[in-house]
C-alpha cells in the first residue's frame, strides 16, 4: 500500500530474502506478476529496478571495502560530469545523509574499512535512503537494524515513519518482532514460501507472529531460579586498550552467564577480543583458574586461550567465524582437530564423520549432512555449527559476541537453550548483545559498559530495561556536557 510501512517476517528459509531479490531485480521469478503503482512491473536488472524507484538495503551489506563512505552511499548515482566525480557535491550530499542516519562522528572521506559493523549498517541505510524522495517509490529494508542498538534503531525507525507519512511505501523485513510491530502498519508472515497471516500490526503481538511463523506457540519463559555460581574462573585484571583506555576488571565464575550491555561503540566487542588475546597491544592481564589444582594460567594469545578451553564466537561470522566454502565437518572440527587423531597421529576420517554427526544431532543443525558447505546453511544453523566447533574443542569459557544476530526465532530459542545448558554444566559464559531482552533472559549478572568505561553491574532480579539503558548512556552524558561548555 502506498505511503505505509509493511512488515514481513518469517523463519529463515521461508522466502523473505528471495522475495526481495526478485523485486529488486537480482533474480527472475518463475511465475506470477508484480505491479508497482498500477503499472505491471517486470524488471530484469538492478538498474531497471532503480529506474523504477526501488531502493534497497541488503541484509548482507552491499558495500565496497576499498571505497570511501561517501562513495559507497552515492554509488548508484555518483554526482559528476564526464571528467570525473564532483567531490564537493559528493561530500555534501553524503554528509546530509550521514547526519540523518546517525553517522555524525564519521568523516565522509573515511575509508569504509575503518568502520565498525554497526556503522557499516548505517552506511547501507544511508545508501538506500540516497535516492531522491521524488523518485523513490518503494524502499525495501532487509534486517536494517540487526547490528544497531536500541537508540540507533529508534532513529532509523523515525526516518522510515517520516518518509512513509510523506508517501513512500516501505517493506520492512526483520527478525526483531517488537521493532516490526512498532514501525509497521501491517505485517505479513511468510511460512514455507506462502503467506500465513496478514493483518494490521495493532491487532498483533509477538506471540501471534511466532505462532504463525512456526505453527507453534512460544512456551512461556519461566524466570530462572537464581543459580549460585561456582568458583571464579576467569579473572580480568585492569585490562585496557586504545578503545577502552580506562582499565576494566571483571570476574566470571563457573556456571555463570555474565551479560555485557552497552551501546554500539562502547567497547564491548573489543573487551571480548582483548580477553581472548587478539590485538596484541593491551595493558593488564587475563587469568584462567584451573579447575583441578587452582593455579592461574596467564592468557595472552588466541592459541593459548583455545588450548586452555576458551572459545570466542565473534560478531562477524562471515569473516571471523566460518570457513565459508568448507564443509560443516571441517568447520566443526577445526578448533579441536587434535582430538580426532588416530593411528600415526593422522586424522581419522571415520572419527571426524562420527563426531560431526553427533554434534549435528545434538544441536539439531539443519543441513544435508557433514559434507555440506557451511555457507549453504541459514545464519542460525551456521551459528549452531560454530557452537558445535567449541563444544568439540571442549571449551569451558565462552566469549560470545551477538550470538543470535541474523538468526531466525526458532534457532534463537534453540541457541539460548544450548547456552543455558552449557552454563548448567559448569561453563562460564560472557555474552555481549545489543538486545537487552536477550541479555535479561540469559544472564545471571549484567555488566554495563559506557564509552569504554565500566559503569555498572546488576544482579539478576535487580535490573530493569530502563536502568540498563540509563547506565549505557551515562558514560556519554558527561562527554556531551563537556562539549557544550
Amino acid at each position: 500500500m502506498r505511503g505505509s510501512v509493511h512488515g514481513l517476517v518469517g523463519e529463515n528459509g521461508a522466502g523473505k530474502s528471495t522475495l526481495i531479490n526478485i523485486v529488486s531485480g537480482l533474480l527472475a521469478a518463475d511465475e506470477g506478476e508484480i505491479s508497482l503503482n498500477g503499472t505491471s512491473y517486470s524488471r530484469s536488472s538492478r538498474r531497471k529496478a532503480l529506474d523504477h524507484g526501488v531502493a534497497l538495503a541488503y541484509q548482507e551489506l552491499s558495500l565496497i571495502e576499498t571505497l570511501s563512505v561517501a562513495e559507497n552511499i552515492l554509488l548508484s548515482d555518483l554526482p559528476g560530469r564526464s571528467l570525473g566525480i564532483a567531490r564537493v557535491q559528493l561530500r555534501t550530499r553524503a554528509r546530509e545523509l550521514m547526519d540523518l542516519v546517525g553517522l555524525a562522528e564519521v568523516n565522509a572521506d573515511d575509508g569504509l574499512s575503518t568502520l565498525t559493523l554497526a556503522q557499516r549498517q548505517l552506511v547501507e541505510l544511508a545508501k538506500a535512503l540516497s535516492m531522491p524522495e521524488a523518485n523513490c517509490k518503494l524502499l525495501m529494508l532487509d534486517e536494517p537494524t540487526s547490528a544497531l542498538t536500541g537508540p540507533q534503531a529508534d532513529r532509523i525507525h523515525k526516518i522510515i515513519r517520516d518518509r512513509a507519512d510523506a508517501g513512500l511505501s516501505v517493506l520492512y523485513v526483520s527478525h526483531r518482532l517488537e521493532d516490526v510491530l512498532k514501525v509497521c502498519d501491517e505485517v505479513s508472515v511468510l511460512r514455507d514460501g506462502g503467506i500465513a497471516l496478514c493483518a494490521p500490526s495493532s491487532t498483533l503481538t509477538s506471540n501471534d507472529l511466532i505462532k504463525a511463523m512456526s505453527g507453534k506457540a512460544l512456551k512461556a519463559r519461566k524466570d530462572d531460579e537464581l543459580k549460585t555460581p561456582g568458583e571464579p574462573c576467569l579473572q580480568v585484571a585492569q585490562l585496557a586498550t586504545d578503545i577502552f583506555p580506562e582499565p576494566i576488571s571483571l570476574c566470571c565464575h563457573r556456571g555463570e552467564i555474565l551479560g555485557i550491555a552497552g551501546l554500539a561503540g562502547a567497547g564491548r566487542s573489543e573487551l571480548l577480543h582483548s580477553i581472548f588475546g587478539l590485538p596484541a597491544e593491551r595493558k593488564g592481564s587475563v587469568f584462567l583458574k584451573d579447575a583441578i589444582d587452582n593455579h592461574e594460567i596467564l592468557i595472552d594469545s588466541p592459541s593459548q586461550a583455545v588450548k586452555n578451553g576458551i572459545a570466542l564466537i565473534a560478531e562477524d561470522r562471515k569473516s571471523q567465524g566460518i570457513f565459508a566454502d568448507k564443509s560443516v565437518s571441517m568447520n566443526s572440527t577445526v578448533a579441536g582437530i587434535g582430538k580426532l587423531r588416530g593411528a600415526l597421529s593422522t586424522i581419522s576420517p571415520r572419527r571426524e564423520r562420527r563426531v560431526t554427526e553427533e554434534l549435528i544431532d545434538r544441536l539439531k543443525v539443519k543441513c544435508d549432512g557433514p559434507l555440506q558447505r557451511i555457507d549453504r546453511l541459514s545464519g542460525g544453523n551456521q551459528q549452531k555449527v560454530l557452537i558445535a566447533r567449541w563444544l568439540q574443542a571442549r571449551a569451558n569459557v565462552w566469549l560470545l559476541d551477538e550470538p543470535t544476530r541474523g538468526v531466525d526465532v526458532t534457532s534463537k530459542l534453540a541457541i539460548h537453550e544450548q547456552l543455558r545448558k552449557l552454563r548448567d554444566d559448569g561453563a562460564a559464559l560472557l555474552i555481549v548483545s545489543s538486545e537487552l531482552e536477550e541479555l535479561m533472559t540469559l544472564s545471571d549478572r549484567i555488566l554495563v559498559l559506557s564509552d569504554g568505561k565500566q559503569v555498572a553491574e546488576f544482579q539478576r532480579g535487580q535490573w530493569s530495561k530502563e536502568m540498563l539503558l540509563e547506565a549505557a548512556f551515562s558514560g556519554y552524558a558527561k562527554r556531551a556536557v563537556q562539549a557544550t561548555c
Partner: protein
Amino acid sequence: MQSSKQSKNMFSKLSLVFEELFVFLALVVLVLLFGFTADNFFTTGTLAAILTQLPALTVVTIGMTLVLISGGIDLSVGSVVALSGAVVGLLFTSSEMPLFVAAFLGILAGGFTGLVNGLLGSYLRLPIFIVTLGMLEAGRGLAYMVTGSQTMYIGPSIQDLSLPIGGLGLSPAFLIALALVFAAQFMLTRTVFGRYLIAIGTSEQAAKISGIRTEPYLTAVLVLSGLLAGLGGIMNTAYLGASDPNAALGMELSAIAAAVIGGTSLMGGRGTIVGAFIGVLIISVLQNGLAQLGVTEPFKRLITGVVIILAVLLDRWRSR
C-alpha cells in the same frame, strides 16, 4: 524427503572425487587427441621424453601447490632450482665431498631460502608476493655467483638419478617425485598440519580465532617449498648432468599454471596435490604433443596460455 537428502549427500561426495576426476578426464582427452593427430605419439620414445622432464617440475609444483593452498605464493622456486644445482656443482667439483652429501646440502640451501621467505612474510608481515619476488632475483644472482656464471659439468655419477631403471623406463627421480605426490596429498588431507594450511588459506582471521598460530605454519610451508625446489634442482642437474645457472627460468609460472589447471585456487584454501600433478601431466603432454605436431615455439606458448585461462574459467564455473 529422505531420498532427496541422500542424493544431495551423494552428489557432494561425488563432486569431491569428481574434482580430480574432471582434470584426469581432460588429460585422457588430450592424450587421445594427440594420439590421433600426431604420428609417433603413442610410443615409448614420447613417454620417455615426458617422464624424464617431469620429476623436477612435479616436486616444485607440489611445493607451490601447498603454498598456494595456504594463501601464499612462492615466486622464487625457479631460482632456487638453479641455486641448489649450483651448490651441488660447486661442492662436488671443488672438494672430496661425496655426491649425496653435496646433494643434501643443495636441498638444505633451498630450505634456507624458504626459511628467509617465511620469516619475512609471516613474522615481519611483508607481502609474500614481493618477498618471493625479491628472492627470485637474489637466488638467481647467487646461482650465477656460485657457478661463476657458467655451466659446471658434473658427469655421469649424478645422472644415475635420472636414468630409467628396468624395463619400465622409470627413473629413480620419477619414482621419488610420484611418491612425494602421494605423500603430500596424504599430508594435506590427513594431518593436522595440512588441515591448518587449508584453514589459514581459507580465512586467516577465522583460523586465528580457532586457535591456530598462523606464523609458524606459513613459515613451514615456505620452507617446504624451498626444500622441494632444492630437490627439484638436484633432479634437474641429474637430468642435465651439469649445473646450469640458467636452469628453470620461469619454472615458477609453470608450477602455478599446473596447480591452477589441477583445481588450486589462487585465493587460497582450495586445491589438491594429485590434481596439480595431473596439471603437470597436462602441460607436459601438451608441450610434447604440440612439438611432435611441428608447432613452433611461439605458438606452443600461445596455446599453453589459452589452456591455462580455459582451466581457470572452468574452475570458476565448477565452484559456483
